[in-house]
């Protein structure tokens, strides 16, 4: 009988101890209180004033007790659902790590011609089909700003292409509060009503402050509206060490937490109990090229650190993985994407985006999404860890086979217990689908393809042959009508 045994059921890494997490959160609370952050939306300023914050023009100084209360009241158990069936699919909590694409790249690379061009309705349709077909991709973001339509309405067209081409949950990134309102209306129509959508959310909202410490009108209004609707909202600063935050990585953590938690406070003061997801793309301003780096090891490190803080706070975390700075899908892309996915998965960040981003986040690439899906299979196998039970120690099998014998499936004793719940992590060995493990002759006979070539073939195959679970025709027609009737608003007017 095994007694008093502690075992790891999964592989996990930590950047910070609990005490360090506490230190970071207190530092963020201090920055929120002493320095404050700017809110460019008058209604948000009023909400914060009423809640007890000190208002100085457009700067809100948030006292720590309000931040601490917001951390208590926000909904932490957040589930994202299938848009066709309402089935509960993603549980954004604990060490559960889910992965998907990113939004809003101005450009994309055509998988047939390799041409880099502005994203279109068709490119978002293709991207969504690829996301829908891949087993390790858990949700969809658009992988491009639709630009063959009036630009002020791009967000509605992106939502339409996504909802038509996948039943996986969707994170919708809207231009402004008007776009968000329209997309929520469409989602409510599909769900069968406001309450139905709240109880089975298949969309997740997204807003982004401008570092350092500025909540633009669009971000603040989207946060408030999303909170009032009771829909999960990601609040995610994209900050760069040495550019829009201190050069020290701990300083970036504090700056980012200060911005995220200020968004949390706004949401909780607008609608207490609303579901909140703490986001972040924390990276460096590359001091040679001046890019916002998506492949820097500091990004992986800081976001793994943020995952520790999120676990400490018991708040769901929105992370970043599967992206690259390089302009084409080459060895650099593979290295950067794989490192980030492995580290992110080990850190246990809950909802991870930007898979498929190339060219430091300006150009999406579907070949990279397919490669990422393969890498995720590997990463998930790694984090599934090694189970040590009396059964898996395999002493009976070793004894039965004996020295010089052959290990065969027939020699494995029947499992003693069945029906163990295994969320995403497969405990059976990873099956290579895309990478080559064939001997030279076999590989040559199969065309001698590189991983990039194999991935591109798969992308084309999905585009040509995969069909997502369709929306009912009448529903699709209604969505078309809603998109056609949408009205855009010029920013700043």
């Amino acid at each position, binding site marked *: 009988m095994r007694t008093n045994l502690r075992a790891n059921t999964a592989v996990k890494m930590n950047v910070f101890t609990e005490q360090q997490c506490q230190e970071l959160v207190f530092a963020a609370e201090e920055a929120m209180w002493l320095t404050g952050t700017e809110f460019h939306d008058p209604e948000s300023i009023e909400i914060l004033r009423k809640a007890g914050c000190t208002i100085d023009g457009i700067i809100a100084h948030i006292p720590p007790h309000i931040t601490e209360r917001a951390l208590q009241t926000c909904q932490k158990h957040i589930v994202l659902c299938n848009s066709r069936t309402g089935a509960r699919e993603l549980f954004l909590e604990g060490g559960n790590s889910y992965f998907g694409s990113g939004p809003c790249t101005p450009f994309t690379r055509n998988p047939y011609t390799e041409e880099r061009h*502005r994203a279109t309705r068709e490119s978002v349709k293709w991207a969504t089909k690829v996301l829908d077909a891949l087993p390790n991709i858990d949700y969809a973001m658009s992988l491009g700003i639709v630009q063959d339509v009036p630009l002020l309405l791009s967000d509605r067209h992106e939502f339409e292409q996504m909802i038509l081409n996948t039943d996986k949950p969707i994170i919708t990134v809207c231009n*402004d509060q008007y776009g968000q309102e329209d997309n929520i209306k469409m989602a409510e129509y599909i769900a069968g009503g406001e309450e139905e959508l709240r109880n089975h959310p298949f969309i997740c909202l997204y807003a982004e402050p*401008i570092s350092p410490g500025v909540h633009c009108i669009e971000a603040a209004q989207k946060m408030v509206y999303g909170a009032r609707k009771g829909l999960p909202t990601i609040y995610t600063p994209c900050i*760069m060490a*040495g550019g829009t935050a201190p050069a020290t990585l701990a300083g970036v953590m504090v700056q980012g937490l200060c911005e995220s938690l200020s968004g949390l406070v706004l949401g909780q003061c607008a609608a207490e109990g609303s579901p909140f997801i703490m986001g972040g793309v924390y990276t460096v*301003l590359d001091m040679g090229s001046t890019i916002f780096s998506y492949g820097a090891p500091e990004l992986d490190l800081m976001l793994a650190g943020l995952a520790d803080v999120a676990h400490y706070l018991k708040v769901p975390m929105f992370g970043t993985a599967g992206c690259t700075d390089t302009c084409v899908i080459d060895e650099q892309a593979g290295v950067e994407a794989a490192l980030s996915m492995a580290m992110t998965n080990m850190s246990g960040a809950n909802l991870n985006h930007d898979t498929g981003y190339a060219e430091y986040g300006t150009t999406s690439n579907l070949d990279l999404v397919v490669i990422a899906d393969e890498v995720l299979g590997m990463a998930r196998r790694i984090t599934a860890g090694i189970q040590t039970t009396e059964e898996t120690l395999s002493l009976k099998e070793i004894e039965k086979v004996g020295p010089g014998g052959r290990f065969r499936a027939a020699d494995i004793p029947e499992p003693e217990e069945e029906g163990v719940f295994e969320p995403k992590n497969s405990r059976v060995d990873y099956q290579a689908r895309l990478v080559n493990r064939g001997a030279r002759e076999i590989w040559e006979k199969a065309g001698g393809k590189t991983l990039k070539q194999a991935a591109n073939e798969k992308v084309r195959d999905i585009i040509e042959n995969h069909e997502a679970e369709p929306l009912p025709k009448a529903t699709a027609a209604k969505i078309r009508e809603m998109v056609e009737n949408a009205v855009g608003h*010029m*920013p*700043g007017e």
Partner: protein
Amino acid sequence: MATIEDLAQAVFDGSTSKAKKLSQELIDDGMAPLDVINQGLIAGMSEVGAQFKAGTMFVPDMMAAAEAMTAGTEVVKPLLAADDMQSLGTVFICTVKGDLHDIGKNLVVMMLESAGFNVINAGVDVSPEDIVAGVKEHHPDIIGMSALLTTTMLHMKDTIELLKEEGLRDQVKVIIGGAPVSQDFADEISADGYSPDAVSAADLAKSLVGAA
């Protein structure tokens, strides 16, 4: 005794106090103020620019050198006649209406100043009307506009149209930049130039004023 090479080196090293001290010493030794600027301060800065392009120096080195150059220039400036001190031209620069993102624009400002332009940085969220007012007030050679969003970049087009309406379009060159902006977009809205980063923005500005 201080040499002009020492001064160039001080700028290259980003040493503000040394640049100040050596500029003063060279002036006291009787060197012509313009030579102090051109052969010392600007020479040091040019070397930093070259190394930055080669990838052996980085943004902080560039900023430190620019500060050292400015410190030296301030020592020499009072000794120059007004038209001795010639800048490459004036650039009026801003982030467009509805957009508060400015890190890229600020990097461009730094590069333009380092290259020898007089820069009027009008900040963020600047409307087409305010840009036109800025042109009337400052008579810049170049307008630089920045946008991070596909929605706000539409204001670049509006600004160019307003410049045309006001009869100012021929008096000023317009350059644009920002993540969603491309050469194609610049061509579409009849801008005079686009550059993908801060270093090439300074090169572009130089070529537009015939200084490249």
